[in-house]
């Protein structure tokens, strides 16, 4: 089998103004993942490397750049699965962590559980030595603008056709 890392940067009504930044990011992530896969031979290392790049990129709705809930907060989620033995780990309602995908991998590898959420995930991240990041550092202006527009227009979260970020989906 030819080694391959395939990535996506999210589905939605992405406006023309955001097309190039999305393409730049997915190409960079795919390239880095492929490099890691060829170097380590490990599919988990490869996909984590690719996703971490996208979590660090403000143009993506994950990690830095995540959209906001009604309280103006970020609540992130991630899932990782391994096909060899059907192992999996996931996290939900996560805050203060730069790379939720890495936390999900630790849930898979270091706990007897499959899914951790909210306060428990936070405590586990601390226990694993994952650096605490202030939530303010994840929140970008376009996410604030999107929430403002959402509230002003009482939008349905499933609608996709309005504005830049309000249509960004999970």
């Amino acid at each position: 089998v030819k080694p391959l890392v395939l990535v996506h940067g999210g589905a939605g009504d992405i406006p023309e103004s955001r097309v190039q930044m999305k393409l730049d990011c997915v190409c960079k992530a795919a390239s880095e993942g492929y490099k890691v896969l060829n170097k380590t031979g490990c599919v988990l290392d490869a996909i984590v490397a690719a996703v971490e790049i996208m979590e660090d990129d403000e143009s993506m709705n994950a990690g830095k750049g995540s959209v906001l809930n009604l309280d103006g907060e970020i609540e992130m989620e991630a899932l990782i699965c391994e096909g060899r033995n059907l192992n999996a780990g996931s996290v939900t309602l996560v805050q203060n962590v730069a790379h939720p995908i890495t936390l999900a991998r630790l849930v898979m590898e270091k706990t007897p559980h499959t899914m951790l959420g909210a306060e428990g995930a936070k405590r586990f991240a601390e226990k694993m030595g994952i650096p605490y990041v202030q939530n303010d550092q994840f929140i970008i202006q376009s996410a604030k603008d999107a929430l403002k527009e959402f509230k002003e227009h009482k939008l349905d979260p499933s609608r996709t056709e309005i504005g830049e970020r309000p249509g960004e989906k999970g």
Partner: protein
Amino acid sequence: TVGAIAVDISGHLASATSTGGITGKMKGRIGDTPLLGCGGYADDDIGAVSTTGHGESIMRYNLAQRILSAMNNGQSAQEATKSCCEGMTARVGNSAGAITLSKDGSVGVFFTSKRMAWAYQLGNEIHYGIDAGQHLIMKV
């Protein structure tokens, strides 16, 4: 949402998905991303999937699991990804996208939304796109 799936030289597969969710969600809302069979799945006997789109619809339809089931029933990675994304939109409404790899490394990319950015590298070429049916190649 972002996602990555990979296959190695021995056919081992893995899937990862990460998201900030959806603008204006209620505090405590959980989407499809962290749920097995919804936000993603990987099984060396079939393939690997990562999904994106309207989380509540993806959950109700079990999109990732359905794509792998379709592949297990003989569809290619591309056929399964297309038929299941379209099936979800037809059955429960709203849009979704997915990337899929089969155990032999075949690629599937499809979305019922307006756009979805995707990419993979093969040798010294990066294959990528964002609009429906678009498949661009860049030398690296």
